[in-house]
């Protein structure tokens, strides 16, 4: 088996980095890490809402990846493989902490709580224009763990409901209904936040 060639003067491709990593090249490991660290870490952070836990989980995800990198044959995109591994690492962690991955509560009926006519103390505040990233981030952190997981996987990370159902071990219907509840809860949190700010500026 020959060692992979290095192309001098040009950025190595991801395929080259992977081959070099299989040979134990420290630079290749680091280059792959630098390329994917934000996506992996952000996923862990959004799902745990804890920076220390997120860093530990990101570290674990990359270590698991590197231990298995010799088996990567390129059947799927490397990023997809890494991302799925990261999700599994986080979900395993949540299960160990006995936190709900996705709520088992099934509902197909609209309830009074979900009625659009009831806004929690924010009747005169609409979510118009754009939503501030930091406000949304804080609202996501405030979600119950089950809602947070589904919102992160579907709306932030782009997983489809059938994929989420496989990953989380729930039904597709449950995934859809919990996503809707998560979005409704976020809406309430964001409106409350705006109402508080509007109240403060009026008082000030």
């Amino acid at each position: 088996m020959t060692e992979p060639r290095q192309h001098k003067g040009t950025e190595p491709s991801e395929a080259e980095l992977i081959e070099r990593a299989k040979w134990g090249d420290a630079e290749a490991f680091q280059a792959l890490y630098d390329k994917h660290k934000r996506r992996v870490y952000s996923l862990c952070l959004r799902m745990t809402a804890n920076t220390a836990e997120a860093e530990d989980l990101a570290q674990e995800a990359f270590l698991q990846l590197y231990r298995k990198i010799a088996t990567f044959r390129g059947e799927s995109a490397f990023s997809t493989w890494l991302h799925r591994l990261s999700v599994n690492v986080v979900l395993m962690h949540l299960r160990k902490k006995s936190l709900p991955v996705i709520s088992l509560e099934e509902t197909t009926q609209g309830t009074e709580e979900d009625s659009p006519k009831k806004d929690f103390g924010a009747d005169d505040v609409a979510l118009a224009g754009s939503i501030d990233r930091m406000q949304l981030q804080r609202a996501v952190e405030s979600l119950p763990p089950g809602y947070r997981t589904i919102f992160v996987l579907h709306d932030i990370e782009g997983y489809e409901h059938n994929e989420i159902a496989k990953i989380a071990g729930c039904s597709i219907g449950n995934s859809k209904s919990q996503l809707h509840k998560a979005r409704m809860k976020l809406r309430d949190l964001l409106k409350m936040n705006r109402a508080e700010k509007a109240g403060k500026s009026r008082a000030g």
Partner: protein
Amino acid sequence: MNCVELQQSLAEGEDVSSWEQKAHLQACPACSALVKELNLIVAAASQLQAADEPSPRVWNSIELALRQEGLIRPQRVPVSSFSARWGRARWLVPAAAMLLLALGIYLRREAMPDQGVNQASVAVPVANASDLNDADLLQEVADNEPAMMTQYQENLRQVNQSIREAQGVVDESPNDVEARRSLMDAYHQKSMLFEMAMDRFLQ
């Protein structure tokens, strides 16, 4: 279609595309506002993807683990001379080697107490070498990778503590093979720190 039925269809993951839904939204300002707000939230969600960066300690810990597990291996690099290969960081090579060599001598002499060896004269160079190398290593880190300073300081603190603890056990039981092995492992960890720094500063 009423408001509850519209909510139900949203909960079932349906897009607002049927004529009943559209007709209801045209007639109901509250549901119309709800759907707009939910769409705003979904559109904003993508901002949170890959939005944050982990601290340098994450990579440092990964690299350390990879070296400990032997997944990082020395690469063959074409070299012309010793100074060309090691450059400014060349002092790290003899420093790391000296640590292990001095430890090897110390441990061998500790295993032969009947030969009247002056243990203090052997132990002192090891301790002195350790102190000198730590300060120089941290100076190199401060010059080359100041962002990693805290992590290197913490790593050195932990590995030096391991060395002190293992040293204490060996001092109490010089013939304890496991204790000597633990001390060797602790020095090996320290030499790996130097090796990591060497690789980093050679890039």
